[in-house]
Each structure stands twice: as structure tokens, then as C-alpha cells.
């Protein structure tokens, strides 16, 4: 039923809007309500509601409908944000995420009834005016409130029960105010600034009054003006709206006293008892007859229009309103059956009848009505009134039409700041392909350069040669730009990861009974998509550590003379060709003494080693597998699988992690990441004819070495660098290549985590940027290699899997290892 693309766009947009809600609810909690924030959430919920309804996800659209209603009320100022409300919103958000998982099959049978009930309960208990007043204001609200009543019994609360009871009772008294008023009301509230239930009253109070005038004899006496029911509708609506800005109770009174008499008057005047059946000519009472006669004299014709409406019509009230408005463009509606106010409340069956005076011929009238959607049939019947024209004022049709539009009050939808960036969604794979193609282009361009050199050498600097040089230069420039642009297209702001964090920190803080002031800076900093995907986990881990172990409980902080709330700062920034993410807290920091003690307890160090090691070396022990200093293992962090995994995850993407700490002052972790994984800086080396590339991130230093400096430790080769012993690996042996084994050797020292290893190569070529290409499916994983790249001259250079080599053959360079080896 839906195409893959449609589903994909739906899911992406859903994700996006959930994030918007999440972010704004956090702002709501932190900074209190502001129109912009409430508007943002309202709109996001509204969008999800619409889209999920189209997709047929009823639970999702029902829940977002509730959220939308809630925020509509906040927007109107008829209720306030409370702690309970924020918690309920987070519940709702979690449920929405579950519903999203349900779509993808990651969850099943998600229940929304509970959270819907809580949202409704919130609306009732957070009411600015007492719930009873709102209930009394419009009987139409009763279905919604009755539901809430049933569901709210679960959470309980005496006060709530009492309010509910009051509301239901009041609703019962008001009774029969129209169908689906909770839905109808939502719309009305938009413009007038009044609560839903009173809103209905507001607009129909006006209409009701007009209806009375239309059908009652007393109000008419020859004047056509009040007869234009829909024409007066808007004006009355505006009046209703302004009434609505008064407290809800008052607006309610307005309706209760206004409407019933009006409706009664209408019925008494036209057709006593039930509303006349559809498609029946009404008896023309004197006043209406007078109007028709008068109109005829002025060249108008009167018609009965029998208009049938589709069964599936969704907004019957608006449909009737539209038909009235449309007919008003060619004439005047004198009366209708059922009466206008009932039509505008949507209270009619398969159709209705109106009496229209117009100068158009019946065919045109028919075509006009039939140009309105959901009109299933139209029948136009001329009216033949009695002969003698009555005296009275002329019908000022045109003037009335003109004066109407101006009276409307614009809905005050203050547009919240929303960056108008135009975007297209592109499959990442397409970008990868593009990147590859540009890579090829770069290679060809380099080859062209060489060709140009040859050409120049052969023909000297004649016109042809100059042209080729120029073309080659321009091509080079364009290729570079192209490469850069595609790189940029692969970048995403770190916000995509950072935005998930505030909620997590909030929940953690709640759970741990801590107060956290979480600040994020540099959200807009952009990173390659692949890097973004990996960085989330380590960040979450570090953040958990900071909240769980770093920040002290509020009381302790006060005792220490720190502010109650701990400050956690997450910041991203460009530093040269890297991104640096720092996470700092002002918590208790790390004490080398405790780590030292722990390391000995865990058997990681002997007491002597521990005593000899410097503080820095001791601190770095936190990156050792299985190390955790938390006195109590909580379910948040401190399972001892922490920092070593954080580090290896970051190194997987060619990044590095370091930290500084001061006891009692806090800790700062610094993560350095490459901007992209597609292009790396590499040290190029030669081994015989073959060129190899070492990722620069893993290159610690390079050395020149004489063969006699190589030592033997058991059966392996090793070198001593500044007093430390490092194993030595010969690339020739690793890849079974022929190379020099004698004389001065070049050694590249590789490092990853705490391990280091020396690698012997023939010759160092230099540093350069390379575009990483995979070895392709048919080669698959080759031990010792992580990929390949194509050099300017078209040759292939192989990229050495530096981390793999270090992991297998390297030794840990921490003190105790050195000590052991000595």
C-alpha cells in the first residue's frame, strides 16, 4: 500500500519530530513554558498525528492527538506546566518511541491507554479554572471527560476524583451540546484563546442568535440582513471569540444562557416538533415570503436547493459552512432545513435544503454547488411565492459580502524560529559511491598532470601545450572542489548524537538523586556520518560515569562549598583537522591513591610497582580492562567494562581519548576524532617496489636504525627506545615481500591503546592524504591490511592495519611491563 520511499520518509520524519518533542520538553522542564517551545511541541505532535493517521497507525495518532490537545490548552494558557505534566510527557514520549519500534517489529502490543489516561488526568488536574466550570461550559466535552474519568481511577487521587465527578455532573446538566465537541473545540480554541468547551459555546452562541433572528418572526420584519445566517456567523464568531478571552466560566455562561432559547425560538417559529425531513419544501412564513417577493422584484430568483452530502463526510459542520459560503458568492440564503445553527454544528442527515435567492440560472447554481467536494447530489427547484410584493428595505447583498471578510481575527500563531534549510534525503551509499568516483577522477587528473609534463617537454610551450596545461589545472581545481563538497555532504552535525543525551542525563540524575546542570556546546560541529555512528556509545558511557561517579549528591556538594547542581559540560569544536569533544564535570575527580590501592587489590600491580609508578601512569590504569573503582556497583555504570571499551571504540575510528583530573575538582575527558573516515592522513613507506600506507593516527614516531642495534629477546627481535624495549616486526616477513634486510633500517613505531611496536620498512616516502578504498568482496579480510588506496601514478598502495599489528605483537608500555622485561 505504501512504497518503501514513503515508509522511509515517514520513519525519518517521525524520528525528527520525536527529537523535537524531546528537546523542547527538556527546555520546558528547565526554563518553564514559553510560547515558542509550546508551539514547537504542538506542531511536532500535530505532524506525527497526521502522518501516522495516513499510515494507519491508530495508536500513534491517538496518542499524539492527546499531546496536541494538551499543548493546545497550554498554548491558550488554560493550564500550566507542572512537574507531573513533564513526567507524563516523558512517559508519552517513551510510548511513542515504543510505538515506533512496534512499526519496525522491535516491539509488540504497546499499550497507549495508560498514558492517554494520564495525559487527560493531567489536563483535568492542571486546570487553571476548576474542572467543573469547563464541564459546565459545554456538554459536548462529556465523552472525552467520561473516558478520562474511567481511566483516571487507576492513578487515583481524591482531589482528582472529586474534580472528575464535578466535571461529569456538570457535563450531564449541560447535555447534548453537539457531537464530538472535543474535536470541534480544538479548532475553535485556536483563534479565540478560549478553552475547548467554552469555544463551542462561543461560536455557536453567535450562530444561535442569528438563527433565532432568521426563523423567528419578531426579529425579521422585512430586513434581510439578519437572515444571512452564515454571513452573520463569522461576526458572531468573532464576538464569541472575544468573549472567550474572559475566564472559561463566563464564556460558558454566555453559551448556556444564549443558545437554548435561540434554538427554541427557531423551532417554534419554523416547524414545531422535529426538524423537517431532508428534501421537503418548507412552508414559507410571512417574513421569508416577503423577502422572496421583494427579491423577485429586483430581478432575483428564489430556489430550493436539495443538497445531498456523502456519507463519509468528515467535517459535516465545515462542509455545510463551505456550501453556505460558496452560495453566498452568488446570492443570499434566506433559510434552511435543518436550521442554520444545526447545520453548522454538523447536526444533519444525508443532506439539507436551503432557500437561495440569486440572479444566476438554475444550471449555474447546480454546477457551483456540485463543484464542492463531498456533495453527492444537487437539485434546484424554483420557488413560486404569492403575487403581491411586500414593502420593505432592499436586500443589500453586495455590501454585506464585502464587509464580511475584514472582521476576522487572525490566529496568533507566532512562528517559532525554525531554520529554513532546504534538504534532500540521500542514501549514504550513494554518497560513498560518489566519493569513490571522485577518487577515480582525482587519480585520472594526476595522470593527466604527468601527461601534460610529457607533452610540454616534447612540444615546448606552444599554444596547444598551454591549452592542455590550462585544462589540466582547471580540472584539478574542480576535482578538488568536488571532493570537498562531497565530503561536506557526508557530514552531520554532532547534534544528532548530542540531542539524545540531555534526556538520558535527566533520567540518570533523577534515579541517582543528583542535580545536574548539563550544558552542551558546539552542537553544530560537523562530523562524518560513520564517525557519528560510533561516537554515541562511548559518549554515553563517559556521561554516565560523570553523573554516577563524578558528581556528588547535592547535600555533599553543599557541604563541600560547591553549588547544589553539578555542572557537566559537553563541548565539540574543530581543532585543526580534527574534532575535539570534551566532557568535563565539577565532581569529585579521581584520586591516584585510591586507584593505586585498587590496582593492587585487583592484582593489576604489585605493591612495589604501584609505589614506583607516577600519578599519571596510575590514572591511565582506568583504561585497563576490568578496572572499576566504584565502591558500589550501580546499575548505571561501574560494571567494570567501562573505560577500556570506551577507548577501543574511539580508536576504532582513528580517534584518541585522554583525560585530566584533579581530586575534588572534577575530571575532563578529551576525545580527538578525525573529521572523516573516508580520507586519512597516512605515512607512505616503500618495501621493494610496493608502497604501503600507515594511518598517521597510529604512527608514534620514525627512527633510523643500524642492524646491529636490534636485540634478541628469546626468539623475537626487539629494539630499545629511550630505555624501553619494543618488539620489532619486519614488514617483509609479514607480507612475504623482498626488501632490504641490511644496513640502515627505517623503523616506524606504531602505537594503539597502551601498546607499541616497531615496524621495519625499506624507505620512508612521506605523509599524504589518502582516500580509503576497501579491498573488495573477492579479497575480503586480508590479515595485516585494512584497505587500499590509489596513488597519483595509478599504482595501488596497501593500507597497513596498524592497530591489528600492534594488538597482536605489541607490548604494553606501562611501567610494570617495562620492569618485567628488564
Amino acid at each position, binding site marked *: 500500500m505504501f512504497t518503501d520511499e514513503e515508509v522511509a520518509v515517514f520513519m525519518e520524519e517521525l524520528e525528527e519530530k520525536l527529537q523535537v518533542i524531546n528537546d523542547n520538553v527538556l527546555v520546558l522542564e528547565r526554563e518553564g513554558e514559553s510560547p515558542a517551545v509550546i508551539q514547537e511541541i504542538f506542531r511536532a505532535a500535530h505532524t506525527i498525528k497526521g502522518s501516522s493517521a495516513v499510515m*494507519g497507525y491508530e495508536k500513534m495518532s491517538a496518542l499524539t492527538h492527546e499531546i496536541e490537545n494538551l499543548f493546545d490548552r497550554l498554548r491558550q494558557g488554560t493550564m500550566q506546566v507542572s512537574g507531573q505534566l513533564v513526567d507524563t510527557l516523558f512517559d508519552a514520549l517513551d510510548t511513542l518511541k515504543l510505538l515506533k519500534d512496534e512499526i519496525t517489529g522491535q516491539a509488540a502490543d504497546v499499550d497507549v491507554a495508560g498514558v492517554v489516561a494520564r495525559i487527560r488526568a493531567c489536563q483535568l488536574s492542571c486546570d487553571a479554572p476548576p474542572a467543573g466550570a469547563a464541564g459546565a461550559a459545554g456538554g459536548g466535552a462529556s465523552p472525552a471527560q467520561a473516558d478520562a474519568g474511567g481511566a483516571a481511577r487507576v492513578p487515583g487521587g481524591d482531589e482528582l476524583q472529586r474534580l472528575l465527578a464535578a466535571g461529569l455532573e456538570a457535563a450531564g446538566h449541560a447535555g447534548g451540546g453537539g457531537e464530538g465537541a472535543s474535536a470541534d473545540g480544538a479548532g475553535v480554541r485556536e483563534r479565540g484563546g478560549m478553552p475547548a468547551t467554552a469555544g463551542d459555546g462561543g461560536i455557536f452562541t453567535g450562530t444561535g442568535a442569528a438563527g433565532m433572528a432568521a426563523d423567528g418572526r419578531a426579529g425579521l420584519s422585512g430586513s434581510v440582513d439578519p437572515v444571512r445566517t452564515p454571513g452573520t456567523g463569522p461576526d458572531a*464568531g468573532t464576538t464569541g471569540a472575544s468573549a472567550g478571552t474572559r475566564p472559561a466560566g463566563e464564556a460558558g455562561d454566555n453559551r448556556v444562557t444564549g443558545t437554548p432559547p435561540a434554538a427554541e425560538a427557531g423551532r417554534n417559529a419554523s416547524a414545531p416538533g422535529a426538524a423537517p425531513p431532508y428534501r421537503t419544501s418548507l412552508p414559507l412564513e410571512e417574513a421569508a415570503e416577503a423577502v422572496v417577493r421583494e427579491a423577485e422584484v429586483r430581478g432575483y430568483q428564489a430556489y430550493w436547493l436539495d443538497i445531498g452530502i456523502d456519507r463519509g463526510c468528515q467535517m459535516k459542520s465545515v462542509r455545510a459552512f463551505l456550501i453556505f459560503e460558496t452560495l453566498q458568492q452568488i446570492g443570499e440564503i434566506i433559510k434552511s432545513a435543518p436550521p442554520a445553527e444545526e447545520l453548522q454544528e454538523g447536526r444533519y442527515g444525508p443532506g439539507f435544503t436551503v432557500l437561495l435567492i440569486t440572479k444566476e440560472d438554475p444550471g449555474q447554481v447546480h454546477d457551483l454547488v456540485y463543484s464542492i467536494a463531498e456533495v453527492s447530489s444537487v437539485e434546484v427547484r424554483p420557488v413560486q411565492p404569492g403575487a403581491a410584493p411586500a414593502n420593505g428595505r432592499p436586500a443589500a447583498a453586495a455590501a454585506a459580502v464585502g464587509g464580511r471578510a475584514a472582521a476576522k481575527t487572525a490566529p496568533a500563531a507566532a512562528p517559532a524560529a525554525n531554520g529554513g534549510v532546504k534538504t534532500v534525503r540521500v542514501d549514504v551509499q550513494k554518497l560513498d559511491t560518489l566519493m569513490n568516483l571522485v577518487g577515480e577522477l582525482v587519480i585520472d587528473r594526476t595522470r593527466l598532470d604527468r601527461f601534460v609534463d610529457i607533452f610540454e617537454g616534447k612540444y615546448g610551450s606552444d599554444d596547444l601545450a598551454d591549452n592542455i596545461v590550462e585544462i589540466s589545472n582547471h580540472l584539478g581545481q574542480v576535482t578538488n572542489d568536488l571532493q570537498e563538497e562531497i565530503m561536506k555532504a557526508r557530514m552531520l552535525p554532532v547534534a544528532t548524537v548530542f540531542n539524545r543525551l540531555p534526556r538520558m542525563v535527566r533520567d540518570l540524575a533523577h534515579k541517582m538523586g543528583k542535580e545536574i546542570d548539563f550544558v552542551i556546546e558546539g552542537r553544530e560541529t560537523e562530523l562524518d556520518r560513520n564517525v557519528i555512528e560510533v561516537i554515541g556509545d562511548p559518549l554515553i558511557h563517559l556521561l554516565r560515569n560523570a553523573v554516577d561517579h563524578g558528581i556528588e549528591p547535592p547535600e555533599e556538594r553543599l557541604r563541600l562549598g560547591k553549588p547544589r547542581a553539578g555542572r557537566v559540560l559537553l563541548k565539540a569544536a574543530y581543532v585543526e583537522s580534527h574534532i575535539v569533544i570534551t566532557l568535563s564535570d565539577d565532581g569529585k575527580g579521581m584520586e591516584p591513591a585510591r586507584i593505586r590501592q585498587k590496582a593492587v587489590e585487583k592484582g593489576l600491580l604489585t605493591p612495589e610497582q604501584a609505589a614506583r609508578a607516577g600519578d599519571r601512569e596510575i590514572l591511565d590504569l582506568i583504561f585497563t580492562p576490568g578496572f572499576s573503582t566504584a565502591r558500589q556497583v550501580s546499575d548505571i555504570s561501574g560494571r567494570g567494562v567501562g573505560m577500556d571499551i570506551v577507548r577501543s571504540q574511539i580508536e576504532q575510528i582513528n580517534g584518541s581519548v585522554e583525560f585530566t583530573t584533579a581530586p575534588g575538582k572534577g575530571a575532563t575527558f578529551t576525545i580527538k576524532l578525525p573529521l572523516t573516515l573516508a580520507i586519512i592522513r597516512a605515512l607512505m613507506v616503500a618495501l621493494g617496489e610496493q608502497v604501503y600506507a600507515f594511518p598517521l593516527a597510529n604512527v608514534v614516531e620514525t627512527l633510523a636504525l643500524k642492524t646491529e642495534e636490534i636485540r634478541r629477546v628469546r626468539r623475537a627481535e626487539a629494539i630499545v627506545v629511550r630505555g624501553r624495549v619494543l618488539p620489532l616486526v619486519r614488514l617483509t616477513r609479514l607480507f612475504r615481500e623482498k626488501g632490504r634486510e641490511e644496513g640502515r633500517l627505517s623503523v616506524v613505531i606504531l602505537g594503539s591503546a597502551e601498546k607499541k611496536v616497531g615496524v621495519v620498512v625499506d624507505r620512508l616516502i612521506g605523509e599524504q592524504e589518502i582516500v580509503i578504498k576497501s579491498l573488495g568482496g573477492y579479497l575480503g579480510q586480508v590479515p595485516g591490511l585494512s584497505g587500499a588506496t590509489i596513488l597519483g601514478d595509478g599504482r595501488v598502495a596497501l593500507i597497513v592495519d596498524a592497530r591489528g599489528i600492534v594488538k597482536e605483537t605489541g607490548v604494553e608500555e606501562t611501567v610494570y611491563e617495562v620492569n618485567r622485561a628488564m
Partner: protein
Amino acid sequence: MGKKILVVDDAAFMRMMIKNILLKNGYEVVGEAENGKQAVQMYAELKPDLVTMDITMPEMDGIEGVKAIRALDPDASIIMCSAMGQQAMVMDAIQAGARDFIVKPFQQDRILQAIERVLSRPR
């Protein structure tokens, strides 16, 4: 050549749904706008035969959008795409000059009927 239609909705998903329905039925979607402001600009540029207009949008909502477009072109044909519960706003839009409305979630034949009929309307 199919009639030219401008689709206005802040939700990409909605735009795509409407667009796909229109394309399948021989209409030409000449543009897509994310808010009323964009819609007005695009209307002036593209002169579409008809506009489908969402109501709740950032920057400029659908009702203001209708007003602005009708100010540019008093004969503009605009169909509102409303959600349940937006009765009063649809009424506002109709008074501002919208020709018809559909209610989301809409069925294909409803939107097609509304468009066909509005385009057939005698001027």
C-alpha cells in the same frame, strides 16, 4: 499536460503522499512548499492551477498563506488540508478564500474529487 499543482505542507511525508497521489492521476506537481511564506513565493513564480495547503505550519500558517495568495491572485484555487479538530481554522481559511478542504487522514478519491471539482468550478 496535467494541471499544475503546488503542494504545501510542513511534513515531508504528507507532501510525498499527496504528490504521489497527484502524479499517479495525471497532475503535474510544479512545486512543494514547507510553509505559507514559501507557498506565496512559489505561487507567484509558478502560477499553479491549484494549491493544496496545510494549516499548521511554521513561519506562516495555511490561513495566512491563503490570504496572501488570494491577495496576489483573487482567483487562486486553494484546497485546505486540515486535520481532525481544526474545524474553526478551516472555516477561517474558507472565509479567507479557500475553495474547499479535505480532512487528514484523507483517502485518495477524496482529495482527487476535491481537486477535480474545484478545477471544474465555473468562474
